């Protein structure tokens, strides 16, 4: 492909970031999605809106506030300093934390939709068959809402790969720490090195297309009648 050492390190960093964030988001997002799908609380609206904010907010705005919060005078910064971890901005884990917020809706919403579509009945049926709460989650919810979880995983991963504005705000441009692919492309363009920019940008384009195509094919297959819940 003709990628330079710097390109490969940017690609590896991007995959590591996206992988870490997606994994963490599945653990954090599933309970949030579950709560949003099942609750009748009056907090459902506000919480749902906060989760969805990154969908509409410019990444720079989110990045700006997170930068302030993680800085030495912000609440998160104070906490990390007190724990002896230093401050998070311009570090890999700072990017992870910021990306958790940024990609949250892409993980929560597909899971929430799948859990809502599942309804209460399959869970009630499982309960009458002596399945406890965790048993029900693993034997009924996961298999029946699997398309939602797969969509959440793919969208969460792909969206984190595609970050740019917020990374610049929080992470800056430090090789092997915060210089992800999108930032590397930006650098090439600034240096007017269009050939190298093309290579990376083209790879991103192909990657995104393949991910979305795979997602589309999977969804198409998952919606065959066999997986419908019988009502």
């Amino acid at each position: 492909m003709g990628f330079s050492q710097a390109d490969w390190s940017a690609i590896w960093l991007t995959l590591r970031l996206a992988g870490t964030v997606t994994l963490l988001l599945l653990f954090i997002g599933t309970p949030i999605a579950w709560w949003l799908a099942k609750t009748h609380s009056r907090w459902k609206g506000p919480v749902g809106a906060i989760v969805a904010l990154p969908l509409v907010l410019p990444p720079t705005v989110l990045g700006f506030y997170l930068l302030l919060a993680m800085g030495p005078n912000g609440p998160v910064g104070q906490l990390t300093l007190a724990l002896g971890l230093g401050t998070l901005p311009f570090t890999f884990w700072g990017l992870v934390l910021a990306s958790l917020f940024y990609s949250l809706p892409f993980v929560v919403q597909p899971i929430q939709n799948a859990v809502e579509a599942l309804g209460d009945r399959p869970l009630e049926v499982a309960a009458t068959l002596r399945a406890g709460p965790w048993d029900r989650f693993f034997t009924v919810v996961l298999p029946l809402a699997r398309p939602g979880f797969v969509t959440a995983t793919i969208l969460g991963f792909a969206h984190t790969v595609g970050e740019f504005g917020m990374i610049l705000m929080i992470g800056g441009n430090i090789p092997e720490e915060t210089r992800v692919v999108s930032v590397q492309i930006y650098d090439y363009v600034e240096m007017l090195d269009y050939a190298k920019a093309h290579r990376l940008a083209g790879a991103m384009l192909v990657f995104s297309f393949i991910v979305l195509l795979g997602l589309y094919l999977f969804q198409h297959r998952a919606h065959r009648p066999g997986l419908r819940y019988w009502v």
Partner: protein
Amino acid sequence: MPDTIRARFHIAFPSERGQSFCLDVDAMLPGSGIIAIFGHSGSGKTTLLRCIAGLQKIDRGRLIVNGETWQDEKNFLPTHKRQLGYVFQEASLFPHLCGRDNLEYALKRSGGHCQPKMVQRVIALMGIEPVLDRYPDQMSGGERQRVAIARALLIRPRLLLMDEPLASLDMARKQEILPYLERLRAEFAIPILYVSHSMYEVARLADYLLVLDKGRVAAQGAVSDVLSQLNLPLGFGEEAGVVLTGKVLERDSRWHLVRIGFSGGELWLPDNSDLGKEALRVRILARDVSLALEARDDTSVLNRLPVEVCEIGAGSNEATALVRLKCGDSYIIASLTRKSLARLRIEPGMKVWAQIKSAAIVQ
């Protein structure tokens, strides 16, 4: 008492449209046989069943099943810890599992009490061997419901709850499943709470009947006792009628009739070849019973019984009345026009003749 189900629930549901629904039930039910919970839609029968299953949590409730407390002021046993089986109105098989795996789901959680012999027996009883390798979407509605009933049995329940298991099926499918339910009662000694709004199913299956109306118990007792009451608030309407338990005494092959004896009399009914010698049920609808003041032989009606008028109550409309008649130890009811009642001067205490135009052997 060990062999009873004691259920007391009180709950007021605020409803969006301003009309609130209140379930207020305090019932002592027998701990065996089929107990039908009958009522019109909105009478609270499904809610009651869901409360008993613990699917609906009610703060003010008390439930003791065969000596085991499932709910009282302090304790609430979650559904998955109650030894019950539940058959939902619509087939509730897990769509991602084939028939066999749906049964397996119950077996794995039955606490290992289920012997392979028992599994074979349940599969044979429900006649589902041919469909076990199919997925629910490849089964007919009746097959899905039979697998669901088998699954509920394999969990080894101490109480089986059935929420209108036939309501989502057409008449042919209902006829397909009813015999399986009868076998179920005969072969398994577990109490079955059977929610229904079909008088036919109640007459055919139930031993005990709990009638709910607007969230309250309107009547309860042995099915033949409750069905012969006139003052049920529901007004069973066209379906008013009694169930008598009898026995085949004699078969008449010339006229294809059987003589059935019940406590209080005998009836000649058409002979369906598959009748056993043991107890069977005869359903007599009120609209098929007419009265005559004297024994008459110049009538086409074969079954004429001497009865005593006990009580006269309101019929399904202004023109008709229901009359409760005592026939030996049994009761039947007749639906008459108020005009005939006046013309014949029928009053409680009178001895008259009931002419039974038709009666159905329901089981």
